[in-house]
């Protein structure tokens, strides 16, 4: 780790760089929202951010706490109904990238946000699917960002809320009208991508100062590493400054009332 930036800043900046200028991006709340707005405020001013509350092309000045904060509507190009959002915009194929978080992800990039344990007798009940199950199949591709730990990166999720590549990596094969699915997972340690053949998540880039052992230790399956592993480029000063200002503004705003 550097003293110039934290591991979570490294994660957010790397996630933000995944978005290209001009992409249309369906934004999940939390880390994805932070990364997507950082992208908009730095290298991708024309990225189009869409939240499932119906707010199209929104430019929030502070990060929303919920998916439907007033800020999102006030700064949007327009706001459509939620049925229209899911029918015309998500299912209609108008979105390039879905940017998701998750509680659990497994080696085939399946996401679990439903529960830990058994469905009829859960150990922990989580919020559920929300917009993710269809976002994962109807958008062009999916980026996922979450913190790396054995608790979140598991061999097999307890419940496939949102499909990555299925229990055996083949869930998207021969399915018509389906997106590419998860193409990268950005954590605080590394970047993973699905193997071209098996679809198993594979480390393709390590953040500076992070060792293979750290990743192996934090992953709940025998994680593979690509033949050529890059070192993830570090955040630049401007990105860090913009991110810190954004988080400070957000903090002030949400503690107000």
């Amino acid at each position, binding site marked *: 780790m550097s003293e110039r930036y934290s591991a979570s800043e490294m994660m957010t900046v790397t996630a933000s760089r995944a978005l290209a200028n001009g992409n249309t991006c369906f934004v999940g709340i939390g880390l994805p929202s932070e990364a997507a707005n950082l992208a908009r405020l730095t290298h991708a001013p024309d990225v189009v951010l869409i939240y499932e509350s119906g707010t199209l092309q929104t430019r929030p000045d502070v990060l929303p706490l919920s998916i439907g904060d007033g800020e999102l509507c006030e700064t949007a190009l327009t706001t459509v109904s*939620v049925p229209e959002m*899911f029918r015309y915009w998500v299912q209609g194929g108008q979105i390039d990238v879905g940017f998701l978080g998750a509680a659990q992800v497994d080696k085939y990039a399946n996401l679990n946000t439903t529960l830990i344990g058994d469905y009829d007798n859960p150990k922990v009940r989580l919020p559920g699917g929300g917009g993710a199950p269809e976002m994962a199949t109807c958008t062009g591709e999916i980026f996922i960002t979450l913190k790396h730990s054995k608790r979140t990166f598991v061999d097999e999720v307890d419940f496939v809320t949102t499909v990555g590549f299925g229990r055996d990596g083949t869930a998207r094969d021969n399915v018509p009208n389906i997106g590419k699915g998860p193409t990268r997972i950005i954590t605080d340690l590394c970047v993973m991508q699905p193997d071209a053949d098996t679809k198993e998540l594979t480390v393709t880039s390590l953040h500076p100062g992070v060792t293979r052992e750290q990743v192996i230790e934090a992953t709940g399956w025998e994680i593979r590493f690509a033949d050529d592993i890059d070192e993830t480029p570090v955040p630049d000063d401007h990105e860090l400054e913009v991110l810190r200002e954004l988080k400070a503004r957000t903090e002030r705003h949400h503690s107000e009332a």
Partner: protein
Amino acid sequence: MAEFLSLHDAVSRYVADGATVAMEGFTHLIPFAAGHEVIRQKKRDLTLIRMTPDLIYDQLIGAGCAKKLIFSWGGNPGVGSLHRLRDAVEHGWPNSIEILEHSHAAMACAFEAGAAGLPLAILRGYIGSDLPKVNDQIKFIDCPFTGERLAAVPSIRPDVSIVHAQKADRHGNVLVEGIVGVQKEAVMAARHSIVTVEEVVDDLDTHPNACVIPGWVIDAVAEAPGGAKPSYTHGYYPRSNKFYKDWDPIARDREAFSAWLDENVYANEGAKA
């Protein structure tokens, strides 16, 4: 044709024990005042429908009003769990509740289909998800033109839908503005509907394609200023993000929750006509 009633009378007339009730509002315009009135009137065995249960259903479930929940995302947005919902699901307190779980896309389409008078909604949904394994209301059909397999869910047709909006005119026509969610669909899909509004005005004073729900598809309009707090009403007051954060420790603890309910709902007699 919409009748102007007090919130007490509207809930008393249209929300029966055992009814299927949808209170909608996607983060914005959540009908908290109406939800509290339902709690105060001790309605029981309700089937509660809502895409995002939010604190309003956490409170209704904790107060023992619900026997079943149909939903697609049950959390405290940006904060964490709905602890009253979890306590009911995980430990049966104050009573166990049945849950029927969808994705947002499916519920949005099901409300849309309900408003459209159809028995089902069709969507390209649930591909690869385990949700169809635990929800027997999710079926699949083959498109007769392309052969593509598509998901089908029953439309939502509540006994009563309750929503909050900015304003009504004297005829009970209602303007909903900002994040409009599935409120119009909820009202149109329901057998009966109650709309609470910030204010009643002479003229909605709006634009040609505004989201206006005509009075003749609404049963009752009740004036309830601040009726969406701690959620928000675009143009009137902001969301109390602080309340959402403060809710977490209250909801984690049965006693703290019960005390909160006594003080903030039961003790707070709703306005009568």
